[in-house]
């Protein structure tokens, strides 16, 4: 059965949920789809099990879920969109979403599509990073927020970006032990951001409170340091760290070893651009927004008709700005469908843009500390695995670049880097950074071509129940 909507929203984080609420308030028939079983995205992820006491971490998420529940939008959670195609051009332009829901395969048609698929974690590989016990920073927040599961009994929290202090705080709060915090950003870099962070005194204050907590617990904090190696044979036994910029030095000079049985490691966030790429939208490389992002106008329109971007997936601005981009995308979709008068649109959009500018200041500061830092892979040894799906090492990537691969798809063809089940989500940034360290511009390196399925899907789900005679076999070409 095919359902038809005016607007489909992909992703039910703060941007997508707001977009769906606004679109349905305007009177557009709206569907919101998320592969998670509840709205909230990563930032407001719903707890796996409810405890009786109110949990402050879930207050904002609960409010978002209540607002979405009260809306007229059709909610499709736990469902997976695996392919999207443009159906026609001109007046009839729209999108066909191939989905796997509770009842198997189905198709949803929509005139407009708002993409709010968030961001994925950026990894820079280090020797030992594939050992059990190494957990992404964002992944650790999921473990801790939704299930209060500790990554280990003595955890190093390392990498770059605002998730470092959040993860440390969540571990302490859950009764765990933080062995050390290793932050690529220097104290000076953080201090320089305070004026922008002051746009959200509440968040700035919260961050300072977490730092006091860390100081009270006498947790060592290494600013301007990076993990150069994860130690251990069958699991994490510790990390070796060094001052950033000295990563290409050989020998153990200036290196410190910290014992731990788990490492939460991550280097910021990368906008999840698969859907935009799949639909052929233009992209720009903007390190201040997380790297490759769809090219948007001031109304959240992409270069593809009736395709809109919102939230961190369209450029990192953080959770505070996300609802405004979602709201603006919904208003623009309504306006473009002729369902909102020009004057209403323009007054609402103007108001939103002012709010967005203010809300973005804090998010911009966070995106800055979480920016791509390609030089952090410069010194990694050749034997280090870069693509863990296909076991491709840094040496193989470097050799392919040496042999003439100038963009990331040629690298993929030559080495299989990015061909595995993760679709390049884990290795793409690392591989591109290695290419960049070899003197190729990011604009030339480009992005992996996006292909369906958007996530691996079972072949049996696509084929369903069928008879041989159901397969339409056209007459063969001449022998």
């Amino acid at each position, binding site marked *: 059965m095919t359902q038809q909507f005016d607007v489909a929203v992909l992703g039910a984080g703060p941007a997508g949920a707001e977009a769906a609420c606004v679109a349905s308030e305007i009177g557009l028939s709206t569907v919101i789809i998320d592969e998670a079983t509840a709205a909230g995205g990563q930032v407001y992820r719903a707890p796996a099990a409810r405890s009786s006491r109110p949990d402050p971490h879930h207050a904002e998420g609960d409010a978002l879920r209540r607002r979405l529940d009260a809306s007229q939008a059709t909610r499709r959670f736990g469902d997976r969109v695996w392919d999207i195609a443009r159906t026609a051009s001109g007046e009839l332009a729209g999108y066909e979403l191939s989905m796997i829901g509770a009842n198997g395969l189905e198709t949803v048609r929509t005139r407009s599509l708002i993409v709010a698929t968030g961001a994925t974690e950026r990894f820079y590989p280090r020797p030992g990073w594939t050992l059990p016990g190494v957990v992404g920073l964002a992944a650790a927040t999921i473990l801790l927020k939704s299930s209060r599961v500790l990554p280990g009994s003595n955890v190093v929290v390392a990498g770059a970006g605002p998730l470092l202090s959040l993860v440390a705080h969540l571990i302490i709060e859950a009764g765990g032990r933080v062995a050390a915090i290793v932050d690529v950003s220097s104290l000076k870099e953080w201090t320089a951001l305070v004026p922008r962070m002051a746009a959200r005194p509440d968040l700035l204050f919260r961050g300072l409170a977490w730092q006091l907590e860390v100081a009270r617990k006498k947790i060592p904090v290494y600013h301007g340091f990076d993990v150069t190696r994860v130690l251990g044979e069958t699991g994490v036994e510790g990390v070796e760290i060094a001052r950033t910029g000295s990563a290409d030095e050989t020998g153990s000079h200036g290196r410190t070893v910290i014992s731990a049985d788990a490492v939460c490691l991550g280097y910021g966030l990368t906008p999840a651009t698969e859907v935009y790429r799949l639909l052929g939208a233009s992209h720009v490389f903007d390190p201040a927004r997380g790297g490759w992002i769809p090219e948007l106008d001031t109304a959240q329109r992409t270069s593809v008709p009736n395709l809109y971007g919102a939230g961190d997936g369209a450029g990192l601005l953080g959770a505070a700005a996300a609802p405004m981009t979602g709201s603006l995308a919904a208003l623009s979709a309504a306006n473009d469908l002729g369902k909102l008068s020009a004057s209403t649109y323009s007054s609402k959009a103007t108001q939103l843009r002012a709010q967005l500018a203010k809300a973005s200041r804090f998010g911009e500061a966070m995106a800055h500390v979480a920016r791509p830092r390609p030089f952090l892979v410069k010194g990694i040894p050749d034997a280090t695995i870069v693509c863990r799906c296909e076991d491709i090492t840094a040496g193989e990537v470097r050799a392919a670049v040496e*042999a003439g691969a100038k963009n990331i798809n*040629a690298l993929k063809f030559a080495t299989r880097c990015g061909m595995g089940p993760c679709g390049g989500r884990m290795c793409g940034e690392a591989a591109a950074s290695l290419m960049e360290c070899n003197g190729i511009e990011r604009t030339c390196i480009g992005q992996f071509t996006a*292909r369906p399925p958007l996530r691996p899907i079972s072949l*049996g789900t696509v084929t369903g129940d069928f008879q*041989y005679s159901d397969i339409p*076999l*056209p007459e063969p070409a001449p022998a």
Partner: protein
Amino acid sequence: MNQQYDCAVVGGGIMGAATAIRLAEGGMRVLLCEAQQLGMGASGVNAGTLSLQIKRVSLMPYALRGHAIWAQAGDEVGFKESGGITLAFTEHEAEILEERMTARINAGAPIEMITGERARELEPHLTDRIVSASYCHADGYANSSLTGAYYRRKLIAAGVEVLELTSVDEIEPTDGGITLRTGDRLHTARRALLATGAWTKEISARLGVPLPIRVRINTVSVTERMPKLAKKVIGHATGLLTLKQSTNGTVLIGGGWQGTGTPEAGRGQVAAETLTSNLRLAQYALPELVDARIVRCWTGFEANSPDFLPMAGRLPGWDNLFVLCCVRGGYTIGPYMGRLMGDYILGREPELPLFDPIRFLENHEQATSPSH
């Protein structure tokens, strides 16, 4: 006028690269321009099947020679002579299979007809609903994604000047030669070859000689790594399935099911409906695929001519501009077609006849008469 090159080749797929290498080996100064990087179009995204069972009868001599070239390339392109089985699931398909394979056997392909039972002895994971089958020990596959890296090495070794990520914006006749414009650069050559695959349709039209090319948008899918399910290339009597499990365990599924899109608009799109049929046929042949996860599905553009035979010769009306495209089964045959084309441009007698595109021009008898 002094030309920089003896020949400029437009297009860095198998045909363009193989021709360029032949020309350079024949003593010519050769330039090759490729808009992307080498081997990233149809040459690099096809399913890599090297099957004599799905080659056109009239192209069999070419296919046998192309196959031998890939065998020589060996590990560099992931060549594997695994053998191949083609399946018929109904009486009607069995008739088609018998007829098509008999013609190929007569054309020199080492194919034998076998029973369904025998097919299952060769490949125990196949369905038990096989009515009849054919087998060819010479069939196999290579890893098409290695095409670009392989030819880059060969081109450099042959001394061809290769310009990747370089679009040819204009092709113009100049006194005694051809001028190519790439951005703000001009390259002059005594002659040029269009080895531009599905893009030849639009390019030939721009040059005033619209060739009747039909573009097909073929779909290929790959699964995650699976336990060993098949050692050989599996096909279907209609040609609508190719299936093989690579040494790394992933299963590649093709068969020419159609996606959407045009070469001019960029890459094609997979169509969920035809993909479903393609995967159903694969699962019917190899039932355990039901549990495989599909990791990626993609499309590649294939150029076809109205008679399904190649276009290989002079672009009608041009003395020094050549065209090579529309080779069905081009992955297998391409390396050999490039050699033939190279020989033709070098002024040698090709070992096997080429396929003059002039046959598609209206009243071409009259058009060719002045040259007789």
